[in-house]
């Protein structure tokens, strides 16, 4: 733009390329977190505090996101409340016109901070749940007293009147608590509960023996969710991420690579999904160097698995390819050693039978010690 040419019309460029604008952005404000859940979705290599984007970088990114077409902003981490500028970031996001969702464990939020977030215009809170009692929750989260604190925060959230979604992450060790978690969501006055069976990437992969649900548990979870959906229609919405190792078809990951959403890591790297850094052949752009629209439409990582040209058989000729895009690229990398392979969860993958057998094996492993995620450096 320094040479006097007109600024790029990215909307027209997107239309020309046939690439839709993203709807949602996950802003991982920090990898710092008081909890250390053994299935944390942050990468194994956590971004150091000193490399985190400054407030003004985020403010610019939020403006660029809104201009690009993002409607929903998820403020996440790590624990986003670990950022002292969280309230200012919410103000900036609302000013940009974004719908603001805070994804939190509750730890680090006080009644006063919640009031400030209310004042700032925060739209919605998603509160994570590690277990339905202190024994389970504090052990899984690796933080003593966390459950009690969370219950206090839930009460404050209710008092202010923030719309609430409870996010229950479930696995072999706590799946029996699922009916209690649903009751808990009702008691808290939550409008929604997300029941997510742990997906095995990064830290969760390290803990696969300890966390993999049995096939029977996975089926029971599906039954519990289906029954509750029917019974609680109009009172509580249930979103459900099933155990995909026990499934026959892969999930439509991220709604399709580079079609719906993007993630910005604490250090400003822009990722097509939170686990994308596990695909080492990809290189990622950074918001410190480039505008978000240029990264979305032109970035190599986003274009790597858009459309169908990258596919191999059996995906290439599969009638389901436009439905699930061959499943999760990171899972293909982790399990097949090739990010362009069919997700081994798929019944059509040559690795499917082996994966199901291994899932069975992992789920019957003796309860191994949990390996907790670490903390980022300074």
């Amino acid at each position, binding site marked *: 733009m320094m040479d006097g040419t007109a600024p790029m019309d990215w909307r027209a460029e997107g239309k020309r390329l046939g690439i839709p604008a993203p709807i949602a952005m996950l802003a991982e404000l920090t990898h710092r977190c008081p909890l250390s859940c053994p299935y944390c979705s942050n990468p194994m290599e956590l971004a150091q505090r000193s490399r985190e984007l400054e407030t003004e970088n985020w403010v610019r990114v939020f403006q660029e996101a809104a201009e690009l*077409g993002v409607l929903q902003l998820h403020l996440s981490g790590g624990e986003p409340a670990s950022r002292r500028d969280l309230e200012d970031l919410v103000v900036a996001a609302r000013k940009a*016109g974004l719908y603001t969702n805070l994804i939190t464990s509750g730890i680090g939020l006080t009644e006063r901070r919640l009031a400030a977030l209310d004042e700032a215009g925060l739209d919605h809170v998603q509160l994570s749940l590690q277990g339905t009692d202190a024994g389970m929750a504090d052990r899984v989260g690796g933080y003593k007293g966390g459950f009690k604190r969370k219950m206090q925060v839930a009460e404050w959230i209710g008092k202010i009147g923030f*719309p609430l*979604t409870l996010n229950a992450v479930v696995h072999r060790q706590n799946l029996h608590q699922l009916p209690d978690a649903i009751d808990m969501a009702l008691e808290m006055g939550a*409008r*929604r509960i997300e029941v997510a069976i742990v997906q095995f990437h990064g830290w969760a992969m390290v803990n696969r023996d300890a966390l993999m649900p049995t096939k029977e548990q996975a089926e029971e979870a599906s039954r519990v969710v289906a029954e509750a959906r029917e019974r609680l229609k109009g*009172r509580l*919405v249930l979103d459900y991420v099933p155990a995909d190792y026990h499934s026959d078809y892969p999930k439509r990951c991220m709604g399709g690579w580079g079609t719906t959403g993007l993630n910005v890591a604490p250090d400003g790297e822009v990722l097509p999904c939170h686990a994308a850094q596990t695909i080492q052949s990809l290189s990622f752009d950074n918001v410190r160097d480039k505008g978000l629209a240029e990264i979305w439409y032109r970035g190599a990582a986003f274009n790597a698995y858009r459309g169908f040209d990258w596919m191999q058989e059996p995906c290439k000729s599969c009638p389901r390819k436009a439905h699930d895009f061959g499943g999760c690229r990171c899972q293909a990398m982790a399990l097949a050693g090739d990010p362009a392979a069919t997700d081994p969860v798929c019944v059509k993958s040559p690795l499917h039978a082996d994966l199901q057998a291994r899932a069975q094996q992992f789920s019957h492993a003796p309860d191994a010690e949990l390996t907790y995620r670490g903390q980022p450096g300074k």
Partner: protein
Amino acid sequence: MSQVAPEAIPVIPRGVRLHRDEVREQWVLLAPERAVALDQVGYAILSEIDGTRSFGAITEGLAEAYAAPLEQIVADAGEFLRGLMDRRILEEA
């Protein structure tokens, strides 16, 4: 038969709002974890909701404004609003 009673008062709850999506040139209803794209009819119905008017009054107003059969408006609007209520995006006062 409508799925919403004529005397019911629909309310857009906290955390849900109408938003003009300038990039896609359409109206959307923003809600927790959801963005519902609205067609002209959907937008017309939702923009009539003010937390005091009943479903009956809203649909009568729309039938008049669009010179459309009331019965049809009541059926379509009822189905649309009930769907939003089932998903906790809309409430009744």
